[in-house]
């Protein structure tokens, strides 16, 4: 495959925006022949922060970690299914830790040249800029980043793939 994009990775966090991003990734992978990866990160950093802040009990940390592991499998399987329906092979990846750090690590380790993320929340305060993990990842990864927007158009593109 000689195109400009050889490896596409979509970051999936369970939001509708990230599922739309995955659909767009599938469309692009089909069109370019690029390898397609889907990444879910179990945000254990946030869990630790919540225990340290005493918002979570130790038992809750374990319970929510299990929930997140379960979510990871569910969403990655969902993407596998979506990709399979459109004849695209997908390599699913699951990591644990801090979201922005793990996105960057997975981009580097897998030599990804295009990261796709879902539409970001509107910036409504300075704090949003500082703390949005996906936005931090977007700023720090070494590859190009595509933000998937316009859910209806993407759904239509995805639907038209045969």
């Amino acid at each position, binding site marked *: 495959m000689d195109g400009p994009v050889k490896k596409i990775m979509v970051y999936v*966090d*369970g*939001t509708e925006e990230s599922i739309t991003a995955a659909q767009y990734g599938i469309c692009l992978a089909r069109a370019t022949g690029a390898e397609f990866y889907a990444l879910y990160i179990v*945000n254990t950093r*946030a*869990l630790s*922060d*919540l225990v340290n*802040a*005493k*918002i*979570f*009990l130790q*038992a*809750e940390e374990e319970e*929510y970690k299990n*929930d*997140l592991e379960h*979510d990871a499998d569910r969403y990655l399987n969902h993407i596998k299914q979506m990709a399979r329906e459109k004849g695209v092979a997908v390599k699913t990846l699951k990591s644990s830790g801090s979201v922005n750090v793990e996105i960057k690590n997975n981009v580097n380790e897998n030599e990804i040249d295009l990261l796709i993320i879902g539409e970001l*929340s*509107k910036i*409504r*305060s*300075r*704090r*949003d800029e500082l*703390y*949005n*993990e996906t936005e931090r990842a977007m700023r720090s990864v070494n590859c190009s980043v595509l933000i998937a927007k316009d859910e209806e158009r993407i759904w239509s593109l995805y639907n038209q793939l045969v």
Partner: protein
Amino acid sequence: MAIVDLISTSVVRVPLKSKTKTEVIRELVDVLDKADKISDKESVFKAVIARENMGSTGLEKGIAVPHAKTEKVKNLTLAIGVAPDGVDFDALDGEKSKLFFLLLAQPNQSGPHIEALAEIARITRSQSFCRLLVNAATPEEVVELFRED
């Protein structure tokens, strides 16, 4: 999703009328019910109380973050209450709690739920911001503070 996206004047109560922990939870659940954010307020109330019975979410320095997973919300939902005189919420430091963040999520929304709680934890680290919230006189002021910060 950013916390600010969850906040509107309809989910902020300033000042809270309640004088006890149970009343505060009941009042915030009522706020969400009136804002049409939950489908069964009694069930939501019980879920929050059940979590509190495992250990108080009254933190230090006047902050409390009651939370629960429940099927009775469609999306991640937040209510904010301000009690300038403080309410005994069994806080870790024994002080009265003045700022309450009640967060509810569907059981299958653990990712966004955790991120929202983590954002609340970060926000409440700023004592000056919390002071401004406690001194807010109206829900509009609270919403504005989150947008300005």
